[in-house]
């Protein structure tokens, strides 16, 4: 996988790093040209870059986390499939209408074990994103996902779902072909699956479009992923009557991994490398892999009945209200 250009990938709030990186590049260039040894200076500067980055990343606002979750270079489902799984065979189509490029699914090996892997697929360039519909699946995407889950179930193989979508696609065709029905049916059927099921929010967990493949026995989330009922911009424009107030909406809705762990909606946060997953694909894939394996292990010994009961109780208990 190609190495990312560190400066080009920086987000606006990482501005203090730009100057440091420029100095660092300058030093490297000078050190290459002259005979003076500048290794010490370079090392110190690198330390400073890391310290500055740590400072920035320890006080991220929810909206800054949104920017990381949506970073154009953030690893996609297919990137993770390449790094985490072996022998992946992609399976296409819902056997009914079409294949949805915004949703990928297939069979694969995870550390030697046969599994099924499903996930939303975004692009990294505008061209790719248009081909992938920006990771916004149509009903046929959800129906394909369910078809592949059924293959897993019939063959007693675990299911891994990777979630990264702004939301299910709001289009004319999507409505005509039953976007609501496709998602609703997935929710009902996922609850009844007799095999271990792990879902991971790797980037954007956009509402029903995310949940449509997200009812795992265990729900994990990358450190800088988000998961919400509506985008902060959407919430701001409806409730605050001003899309520019997305920051307030992002804070109010509690959409970060840390908040969701506290609310009990997710089970575990998967650490990301310094500067976010896009800075080091290999490290984030390694973290993801070990988290999936650790969470899968205890589920493997559960019976069909126990797996269903576990999943049912998990979602049945979600909700906060008063009674009396």
């Amino acid at each position, binding site marked *: 996988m190609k190495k990312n250009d560190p400066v080009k990938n920086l987000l606006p709030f990482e501005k203090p790093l730009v100057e440091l990186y420029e100095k660092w590049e300058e030093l490297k260039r000078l050190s290459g040209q002259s005979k003076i040894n500048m290794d010490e200076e370079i090392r110190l500067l690198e330390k400073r870059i890391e310290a500055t980055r740590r400072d920035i990343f320890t006080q991220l606002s929810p909206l800054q986390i949104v920017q990381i979750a949506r970073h154009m270079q953030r690893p996609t489902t297919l990137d993770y499939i390449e790094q985490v799984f072996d022998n992946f065979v992609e399976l296409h189509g819902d056997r009914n209408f079409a294949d949805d490029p915004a949703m990928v699914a297939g069979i694969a090996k995870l550390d030697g074990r046969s599994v099924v892997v499903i996930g939303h697929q975004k692009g990294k360039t505008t061209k790719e994103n248009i081909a992938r519909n920006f990771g916004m699946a149509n009903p046929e995407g959800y129906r394909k996902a369910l078809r592949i889950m059924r293959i897993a179930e019939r063959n007693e193989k675990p299911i891994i779902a990777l979630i990264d979508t702004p939301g*299910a*696609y*709001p*289009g*004319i065709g*999507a*409505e*005509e*072909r*039953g*976007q*609501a*029905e496709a*998602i*609703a*049916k997935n*929710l*009902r*059927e996922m*609850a*009844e699956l007799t095999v271990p099921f792990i879902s991971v929010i790797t980037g954007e967990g956009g*509402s*029903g479009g995310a*949940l*449509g493949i*997200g*009812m795992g026995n265990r729900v994990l989330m990358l450190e800088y992923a988000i*998961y*919400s*009922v*509506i985008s902060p911009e959407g*919430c701001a424009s*409806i*409730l*605050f*009557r001003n899309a520019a107030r997305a920051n307030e909406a992002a804070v*109010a*809705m*509690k*959409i970060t991994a840390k908040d*969701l762990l506290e*609310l009990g*909606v997710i089970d575990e946060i998967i650490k990301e490398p310094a500067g976010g997953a896009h800075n080091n694909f290999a490290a984030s894939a390694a973290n993801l892999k070990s988290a999936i394996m650790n969470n899968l292990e205890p589920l493997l010994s559960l019976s069909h009945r126990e797996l269903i009961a576990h*999943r*049912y109780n998990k*979602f*049945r208990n*979600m*909700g*906060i*209200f*008063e*009674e*009396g």
Partner: protein
Amino acid sequence: MSIHEWFKKKKLEKEGAYVRERLDIPGNLWVKCYKCSQAIYTKELEENLKVCPKCGYHFKLTHFERINQLVDQNTFKEINANIKSVNFLNFTDSKSYTKRIEDAIAKSSLKDAIVTGTGKLGGKDAALGVMDFSYMGGSMGSVVGEKIARLIELAIEKKIPVLIFSSSGGARMQEGIMSLMQMAKTSAALGRLRENRLPYVSVITDPTTGGTSASFAMLGDINIAEPGALIGFAGPRVIEQTIRQKLPPGFQRAEYLLEHGMVDVVCERKALKDTLVKILRWFDEKE
């Protein structure tokens, strides 16, 4: 209002996108139909089950009116009436969610956007959920999800069918992710109902969109829609903004969904009780 805004409003009204209705029909003798703009004698409207006698427009019903129209007299018994929403996220937009809850209770005299219970239709027992749009646009938060899950669990225990009347803008944003989780919870409960081989009839009324349509509302063994009801995943404005195209006529209306295979029956309100009773009697052949 600028002249430009006036024209825009007129255009939207013409397209029916702006059918604004006041749920509390005033004590006036006459009301104006939101669709055909004809004046209707209030009493006549009520006798006609709140359907415009001139154009057939179905006015929204409160839970009270819905139960009165459909459930056999004095058979409805409410359950879980005392579950209340709380502002657990400390959510405040133009006003706090706490205040919104208070205002909604005062406006609708309801504790939340759904009333659940058991009752008889044509002598047949059913577990009934009736949503009410006048409580925060029928939005689904923790309380709606919990009441539906408990209703379904009760139906399983009593071995009776489930009937839910939806009318909801979707998930309740003031409860953040927890409102999304209600989609999972209600759908999972319906899965259990199905495993227990008990029927679920979903009656979809105007409007039913977002998280409500993408969970329990579309999952009926039989889906019935009221004429003209707006039913969809995304709201029409969101779609228009996304695709930057004009939407086809009748888009997302009950008849359009029937044509596209998403609902089984579009049923006029005056025939609804008969239809439901026929269905319940089909499922349960005992006299």
